[in-house]
Structures are given as C-alpha cells and as structure tokens.
C-alpha cells in the first residue's frame, strides 16, 4: 500500500478543511443553547463548509467543529485524498484499505497524551463544565455524544469496541443513551453485564481523528482500533484511562470515563435523528455514570446535527453500509458489480448491481443483506442488473418503475430486526426493535427468452451502432447544439 497521509487527529483535519475551503472559522461568539446547533443544521441542509466555532458563550477556551463528514469532499480529505475525488474513487480507496492487514494500536505514556492535559475527577467531573450543546430546540437534553465513540471491552473475549451511540446529559454526572440491542455494546450489556448486575466500564471519546470516528460508526466486523489503523495507514495511539482499565485515543479532545449502571435508568430523548424526524420516544435507556473527565487545552467538541439530508448520519453511514455489504456479498461469491445507498434515502435503501447469472440471485442478496449485522439499518433492497448505473438515480428509478413486477418482484420480510428510529414503524415495533423489510427485484427473470421475451432498452447508448454514436457525438456542436457532449 502506498503511503497514506491522512489527518492524524481532529486538529489536523480542521486545518486541512480550512485550507481547502471546506471549513469556515467563526470568530464571533456562538451560543451553545440552540445557536451552534442551528448553524450546523443549516450547513448540512445547504451542503456548506463545516463550521469551526472558536468562541462559545459561557465556555472560554473551548470550540466546536460541526458537520465533520457531511460532504464527500470532507470524506476525501479525512482519507488524505484529493477533495475533488469522486464517490466511486473514495469507495474504492475505502475497500482497498479495509481489505488490507489490520494495524494494531500502540499504547503511549500518559505524559505524551494530549487528552490528559486537564483532569477532573469525582465530583469535579461535572459535564456542565464542557460546552455540551442543545443541538435541536425541543430535544430531551443537551447531547454530549453526537460525533464520538463509546469505548468498552467485551468482558469475556476481551475485544475492544468503539461505537457511536448517542449520549444525552441528564445531570452533571449522568448521561443516558440509545444503545440498540443488536449493536456490539447492546449485546455485551444484555448478554453479560445486565443479567449479572455488574457495571460496565466505559469511556467516551469526543473530537476523534475523522477516521477513528468513521470506524466507530462503520458496521465492520473488524475491531474499531484496528480498523482505524487500516484506514489511516498507521497505528492508533492509545493511553490508559484514569479510573478504569480501558484505553482511549490519546489525541482525542475530550474523554469521559465512568460506568454503565446495571440497575439504574434515566430518561433519554427525544432527539433529532438521521431519518429527518424525532421518532424514537423518550424512554428509560442505558445510563452512564461519570467518574472522570479529561481534555486537551483549548478542546474542540465535535457536533453532528442529524435531521433532514444531508448530514454524516446519512452520508457517511450510507457510504460504509453500502461498502460493507459489497464486501459481504463478494465474500459469498455473488457477482455484484457494486452497492450504493443514496444518502437522501437516509440509508434506508440498498441498491445492488449484479450480473443476473442464475435464478433467485436477488433473493439471495436480500437474505444476506437483511440477515447480516447491517440488516437492521435499512428496510429496502433494490436489485438491478449490471447494465444499470447504480449511482445514477434516474436509471435506477427507471429500472424499478419498469422491471419490478408487482406480484413477482416485491418480497416482504416480516418479523425482522428494526430500530426505534423507523418513522414508518408502529410504536409497538419501535419499542421492541421489531422490523419488516422489502426486496424490489428489478432483474429480468432468467426463464424469460433473452431474444423474444426480454424488452430491449431503448436508449442512445443501447440501440445505435457504435460508429453512428461516435459520429453524432463528435458532430454535436456542428449540428448547432450547445449542450455538453455526454
């Protein structure tokens, strides 16, 4: 693998984004109470540069960085690529790096760890000392964790998990969060800690390197510290926590240490979500008690503001869910030509391109997709042939509206796994993470006669001889047309 030169921490990332015009420094004071959230939201909806807010009301010395990865340009910068890289290029780079050898992290001395520059312990570890924003008016609370990693260790296997699971400040030393039962942390809690009545040590890391954040919300089976190393081409630097045995990224801006309590729950939510709604109800959820806070001098808090497209909840998750499904399908030998989720689907629709070489291939794809670890996060799979450009919604939509047979092409899967966030799910299904899913098979059936039964696509590209196409394209301007030569 060629040398990767990706930003190694959040500060280098902000610098790179400012330099390329993909972040804006905001010098004037911004209020943590709604104003910062509103700025980030508007940046997402306009596809703007990321706001780097350098002065926060009531919190001298702290800053905010919002909408870190809500554009493909910033995603390219995070990977150390040219900001103008195309989506297929960025995707190919992600696949190349995440198919390489895992890169183990290294543990460094506390004296060399920037996240230890300030240490607050016990009663001093008051979350209100951090500029925790009210992200959307009407949210159930100020959210500490919107772009972060919750770090835990599996009590038996010992493997480390970094997961992005939202965390609300309930009071000065208590947070509550939506940790879904099918997530890695959710499983460790329900399989081990809760039945034993044992507390689960955790550490929340905020202001991560963009690739560590990408790993924390990527549905990859590779443990996130190793995955971060693969994405960035160098080992992650970790340092031991103050109050438990976990290790945290030494370059993170803010670390919150504590315990997930097995026998005490406080309310969480509602919260603006990636679907573009507040859907999941306020409920008693996983509760985190804070024992310590450590942070860098001039710490920057990262904020993702989820709502209507497009924010990183849609853009980045669509990206990694699609590519992780592509890896899974290829590992099963299915002749897929690509997988893509439009961020505007709020990562609800997987579009899979495949060479339709045998019967039932779309069903096989849907069963693998819905049956995988990724499955709860989307409820539609649309399978098109290899002649359809999966990145071109006009082509995909045309294929769907013309080839998907209402009786034969639509298959509903019932009683699957869902999330509390699906706007279309019933309140009961949301509460218990009960899902339902659907396959749209847009392939021509293999038992149709290819010559006489399968319709011919009538397009410039498909029906004219090559030489005529070339002649027409080359003469386009001479005919008097001014449009682009496509």
């Amino acid at each position, binding site marked *: 693998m060629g040398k990767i030169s990706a930003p190694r921490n959040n500060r280098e990332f902000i610098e790179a984004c400012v330099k390329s015009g993909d972040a804006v420094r905001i010098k004037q004071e911004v209020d943590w*109470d709604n104003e910062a959230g509103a700025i980030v939201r508007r940046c997402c909806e306009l596809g703007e540069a990321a706001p780097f807010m350098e002065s926060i009301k*009531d919190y001298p010395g702290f800053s905010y960085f919002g909408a870190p990865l809500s554009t493909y340009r910033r995603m390219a910068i995070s990977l150390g690529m040219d900001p103008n890289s195309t989506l297929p290029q960025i995707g190919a780079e992600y696949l190349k790096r995440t198919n390489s050898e895992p890169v183990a992290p290294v543990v460094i001395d506390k004296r060399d760890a920037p996240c230890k520059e300030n240490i607050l312990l016990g009663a001093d570890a008051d979350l*209100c*000392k951090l500029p925790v924003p*009210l992200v*959307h*008016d*009407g*949210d*159930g*609370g*100020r959210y500490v964790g919107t772009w972060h990693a919750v770090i835990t260790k599996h009590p038996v296997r010992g493997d480390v998990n970094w997961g992005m699971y939202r965390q609300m*400040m*309930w*009071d*000065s030393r*208590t947070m509550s969060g939506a940790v879904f039962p099918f997530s890695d942390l959710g499983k460790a809690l329900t399989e081990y800690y809760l039945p034993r009545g044992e507390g689960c040590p955790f550490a929340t890391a905020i202001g991560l390197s963009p690739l560590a954040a990408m790993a924390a919300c990527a549905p990859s089976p590779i443990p996130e510290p190793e995955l971060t190393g693969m994405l960035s081409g160098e080992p992650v630097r970790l340092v031991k926590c103050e109050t438990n045995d976990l290790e945290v990224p030494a370059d993170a801006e803010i670390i919150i240490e504590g*315990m997930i*309590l097995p*026998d*005490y729950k*406080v*309310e969480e939510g*509602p919260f603006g979500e990636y679907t573009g709604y*507040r*859907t999941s*109800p*306020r409920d008693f959820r996983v509760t985190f*008690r804070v024992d310590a806070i450590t942070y860098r001098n001039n710490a920057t808090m990262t904020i993702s503001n989820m709502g209507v497209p497009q924010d990183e909840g849609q853009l980045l998750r669509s990206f990694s869910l699609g590519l992780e499904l592509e890896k899974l399908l290829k590992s099963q030998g299915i002749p897929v030509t690509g997988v893509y989720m439009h961020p505007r689907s709020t990562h609800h629709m997987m579009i899979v391109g495949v060479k339709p070489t045998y019967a039932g291939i779309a069903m096989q794809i849907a069963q693998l997709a819905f049956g995988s670890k990724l499955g709860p996060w989307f409820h539609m799979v649309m399978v098109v042939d290899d002649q359809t450009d999966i990145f071109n919604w006009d082509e995909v939509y045309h294929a769907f509206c013309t080839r998907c047979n209402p009786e034969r092409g639509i298959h509903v899967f019932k009683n699957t796994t869902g999330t509390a966030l699906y706007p279309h799910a019933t309140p009961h299904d949301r509460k218990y993470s009960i899902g339902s899913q659907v396959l749209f098979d847009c392939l021509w059936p293999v038992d149709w006669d290819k010559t006489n039964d399968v319709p011919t696509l009538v397009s410039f590209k498909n029906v004219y001889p090559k030489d005529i196409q070339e002649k027409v394209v080359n003469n386009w301007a001479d005919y008097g047309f001014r449009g682009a030569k496509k």
Partner: protein
Amino acid sequence: MANKWEVFVMDLGELAEGKELELTIRTLNDGLHKYTYQRAKVEVSSTLDKFADSLQVRLGRGQLSDRKFSIRVIERVERLPARYR
C-alpha cells in the same frame, strides 16, 4: 428568584392539579446547568400565580405545549442507589 422548569409528558393528564406528583423536571434557569434534570416531588397549578416557579411543558416529540403552569418543588427525590453516589 423564581425558577423556570420544564417537563416532558406524553399526555397533559399526567399533570394533575391539587395533589403531589413525582416528576422528572429540568431547569431552564440560565447558566451552565441549564437543561439538567432532577427527580422531584412537586405540585403544579394552571393558575400561574399560585406558585412562584413556572413550568413549561413539552410533549412526546419535543413539541412545546401552549399550556403553562406554576410549580412548587416540594423536595428532590434521589433514585440513584447510594453505592454510586
């Protein structure tokens, strides 16, 4: 000085008047602790000058209710088990 509080309810019927209620309320007082919660025994009234403190209400998905109340916080209720304090 009068305090400002807020509560989330699914149904306004949860805010019965003329009796003691136990609610999770958050402070809307300006300052670093704005929006932090506590559990408390309270009494509420739709007569706005009955109690010194005010209570604003939000519904299940964060919608601000136009019903306003006054509130008396009788005492704080600590549910966190002592071993964690």
